[in-house]
């Protein structure tokens, strides 16, 4: 069963929505949709998500990872919720309420309705009235946290039949509704497509799934390379002397087959000659490359040449390299590059 089937079934189950309590004089669903089409936010979004006056400061988790941390969805039975809250609720504190509804899992039939004790911040409960005012087909769903937060309610989201949504509770228009609206629009999704999802499925929908870092070019550095990557390599110093007129937004780097060594800027920020470090393979070659100003290893510009490293290289060896050629003013190339080097011992 698809998620849409689940959702439609759930909507059908709560299709009869009464108008109880305060707020029955609010805008009709049709009025609200007209407003929305005019490019303005539906009224209920601001009503249920405003900040208490003078209490707007808060920092915490961003919208997407917060929504993605939901462990369980619970759809409120709007027909019967008023009885649960008949005693009223404190909008400024968290308490436990017995709320009628049913658990909702994507791809599964709705669970039987029952009343469930839920610990929830009172300001979120304003969403129940908002859902009633939003007209037939509107829904109110609670996102519950996992055991590490004692199953407390994380959020309450209200949706009308056309899919417009708002998160209820103090400051949630700014903290959840606005950023989620932006995010879902950018992903081409609607809020209803998230309902019932948890874990990796929800993270994937929200673009939070980590596919793993794309491995870039190997860089040889004692802090960032594994022992295996550096095994068998000898650390040497490379004294580099480019021509004095090599001044351009570019860098000069050395590399061996196993990865990239240090670079030096050619932008005039340092004087020549300079000494940088390099890992080399005794008996192997050391290449000299021109890169851009950022030393972007994904797009090396030009291989300038290479030198052969002695087989009997001593750990105290320095490579003294001189370069010739004409560096383009924009750093885009070296014409007729020549690399010469000799070994020295400190």
């Amino acid at each position: 069963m698809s998620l849409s089937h689940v959702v439609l079934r759930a909507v059908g189950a709560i299709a009869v929505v009464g108008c109880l309590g305060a707020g029955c004089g609010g805008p009709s669903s049709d009025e609200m949709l007209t407003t929305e089409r005019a490019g303005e936010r539906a009224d209920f979004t601001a009503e249920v998500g405003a900040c208490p006056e003078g209490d707007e400061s808060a920092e915490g988790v961003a919208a997407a990872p917060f929504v993605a941390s939901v462990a369980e969805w619970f759809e409120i039975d709007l027909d019967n919720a008023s009885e649960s809250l008949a005693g009223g609720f404190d909008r400024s504190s968290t308490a436990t309420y017995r709320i009628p509804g049913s658990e909702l899992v994507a791809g599964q039939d709705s669970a039987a309705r029952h009343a469930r004790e839920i610990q929830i911040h009172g300001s979120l409960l304003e969403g129940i009235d908002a859902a009633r005012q939003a007209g037939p087909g509107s829904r109110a769903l609670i996102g519950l946290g996992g055991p590490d937060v004692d199953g407390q309610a994380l959020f309450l989201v209200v949706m009308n039949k056309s899919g417009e949504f708002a998160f209820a509770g103090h400051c949630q228009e700014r903290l959840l509704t606005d950023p989620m609206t932006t995010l879902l629009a950018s992903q081409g999704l609607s809020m209803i497509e998230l309902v019932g999802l948890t874990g990796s499925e929800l993270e994937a929908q929200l673009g939070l799934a980590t596919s793993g870092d794309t491995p870039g070019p190997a860089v040889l550095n004692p802090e960032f390379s594994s022992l295996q990557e550096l095994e068998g390599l000898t650390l040497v110093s490379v004294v580099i002397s480019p021509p004095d007129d090599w001044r351009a937004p570019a860098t000069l780097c050395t590399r061996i087959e196993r990865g990239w060594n240090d670079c030096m800027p050619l932008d005039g920020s340092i004087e020549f000659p300079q000494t940088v470090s390099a890992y080399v393979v005794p008996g192997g070659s050391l290449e000299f490359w021109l890169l851009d100003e950022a030393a972007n290893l994904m797009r090396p510009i030009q291989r300038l040449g290479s030198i052969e490293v002695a087989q009997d290289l001593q750990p105290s060896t320095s490579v003294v390299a001189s370069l010739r050629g004409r560096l383009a003013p924009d750093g885009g190339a070296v014409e007729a590059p020549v690399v010469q080097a000799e070994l020295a011992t400190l």
Partner: protein
Amino acid sequence: MAGILRTRRRLSARRRARVALSLAVMTGAADGSLYTSTESSAAPAYPQDPNNCNDSSIMWRFETNSGWTKNGVDRRPWVRAAINTLDDARDYNGSPLVSVTEHASIGVEVQVKDKPMNQYGSAECVSGASFWVNGNYTSSKFYWHVARHEMMHLMGAEHGGNIDSKNGDNPPTMMTCKDWSTFRSVNTLAQDDAAYLNWLHSGRDYRQLHANYGWEQGTSYWGKTAGALSYKSSGGSLGPGYAAWQAPTGNDYLYQTVAVHTGDDNESYRAITAAKSLSPDYKTAVRPALYRRNIAHQSSNSCEYADGVGNPNDYSVTSGWVLVAQPSSTVVGTGWTGVQSAFSNPANAMGYEMQVRIYGVAVPNSGGATGYIGIDNSRGDGT
């Protein structure tokens, strides 16, 4: 191991005004990062002082509120323990970088509030310094992170990224925008926390980039390419501690890396250390060096960052290590000698991983193995 993320920038007048209202107004990022602000790196005085948000010595007290206890558990010990870790950060000479003292009735009021679950805390430094934490959480690590985070705001710190230089994906205290489940499970300062407090409150000139640069906390955060490295508890350059290192060759080096998120700032940096030969029987040459790798942020998120900073969480690095500043090798005797480069202005980037290296070797005057070098106050610093 990856670099850390901090943002330090000059505050615009507009930004100062906003910080004056609240140090930390979350904007509701959609994709998982928090936002930043900051701090001048160009002047010897701290520009956040007018906001009273750059204090290095803070007296604080708990608000009297029954909300501290939930499910029979008092959260105040967790908050207190978190705040007290700030005393662990050490300046170049071993003195605490900051001081936090609990008092019964005066000082910064530490409050507990009953808020929706996505609101973790907030700090205020204008109309009576205070901060609050959300009392609806039940995990100690939530309070460790949030309480230290808010107190560091009052010490002038701004938001950083989620990757610590030393501990990889264990986020430093000033990370924001991430779910609380990603907070560290230990109540200790991360390397980035210590480095940031050095940046804010070290007694040395300029802005210090690195943590434990006075070697007063052993060899913490430092690495080496080779050789024996040990901590000496007396005889340092400006404080008691220093490092004794027997480098096998002049190609070897000590290193420490931190990351800074500079946005559109344009600062200059240098490498600096103190060094000496531990014996007159060696010719000892030393040179510090500062290298950078450019940090690229993913496209900006809806968290609010100042000064052009994008998203400092989950940043990427695609550049090689580029030399920023390095002096010629200097021969040092048996007395402490300062060796430093000139300041250099690297090509602009969203931020840098800054690796300071200390090269050196003590060559025996009459043959044999290399000797020990004394190393102290080793760091990169910025204008």
